[in-house]
């Protein structure tokens, strides 16, 4: 039983591969641009475009069942929540330490343990 009619074929895969290799070259090229502060954002943006190409063409998410697409969407949402809530905690931690509403007795607990110092000198 042949089921190739509803799915991408070699032509779509070849075009996707060429686009992915071009985006890889773009990643290397963008790293040489004189915008060091934006380099990370550009690199992650290009990586996300590459990931989208892989997911939609090679993994055929576009042609998958609604249940499969929903699973992928929930997965992305859950991962985004993990990063988002962790980022909120990390960026707000210093502010909470400085807040007069936080009792001094709680600040050490909020700050966590002191950094470990390792002496690598022989």
């Amino acid at each position, binding site marked *: *039983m*042949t*089921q*190739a009619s509803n*799915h*991408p*074929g*070699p032509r779509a*895969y*070849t075009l*996707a*591969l060429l686009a*992915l*290799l071009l985006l*890889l070259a773009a*990643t*290397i090229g963008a*790293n040489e641009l004189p915008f*060091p502060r934006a*380099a*990370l954002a550009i*690199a*992650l943006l*290009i*990586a996300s475009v*590459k*990931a989208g190409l*892989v*997911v939609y*063409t*090679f*993994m055929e998410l576009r042609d*998958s*069942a609604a*249940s*499969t697409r929903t*699973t*992928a969407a*929930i*997965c*992305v949402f*859950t*991962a985004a929540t*993990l*990063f988002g809530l*962790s*980022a909120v905690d*990390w960026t707000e931690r210093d502010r909470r330490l400085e807040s007069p509403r936080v009792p001094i007795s709680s600040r050490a607990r909020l700050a966590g343990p002191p950094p470990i110092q*390792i002496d*690598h000198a022989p």
Partner: protein
Amino acid sequence: VSSAALDLPFVSPHQRERAALLGMWLFIGQEVLFFSGIFLVYAVLRYAHPETFAAAHEHLDLRIGTINTAVLLVSSYSAALSVWAARTDRLRLRATLMLLTAALGCGFLALKGVEYAEKFHEGFLPGRFYAGSGIPGRPDIFFGVYFASTGLHALHVLIGIGLFVWYALCRLSRATAPRDAESLRNSTHNIALYWHFVDLVWIYLFPLLYLIR
């Protein structure tokens, strides 16, 4: 397809194919969350030690990282083609493409091994094993993240290679009955999905480790 070829609760081969793919996507979903933990550790440590991460990445081999990225992208292409070959009943081509994908995976691991050997030789190791020099701050932390993330990724590549070789060789001559042909398509598709996920992880690891500014 005769009713004897269908296991309950499936009413059609198409429904069984969709169920098999959904199962694989659920597995990939938990793998995404597993690697998200690794990426989160990377983000927190990079935020805490920006100078160290910027200096330490200079000691990674960008040329090997770039070649390995291209190798994995091409291997994803051959994996996708193997699914197409299975769908169109080109069984020998399917097996050849699966073996090609496995060979490209081996090439990826070989290059990664060369890079690991360089790091071992230079003493750029995690934690208390660190014996390198010339990097400010806590390079032992950077190389901890480097070895943990790339090591876990390499383990996934190794598992993928095993699956491709096993299903290319051991299932080559069995696809005679309709049920076997359908099983062959589903297993090829699921292994390819797993391989594409491994490729996805590297697509993000490559800029985060090798292209830090």
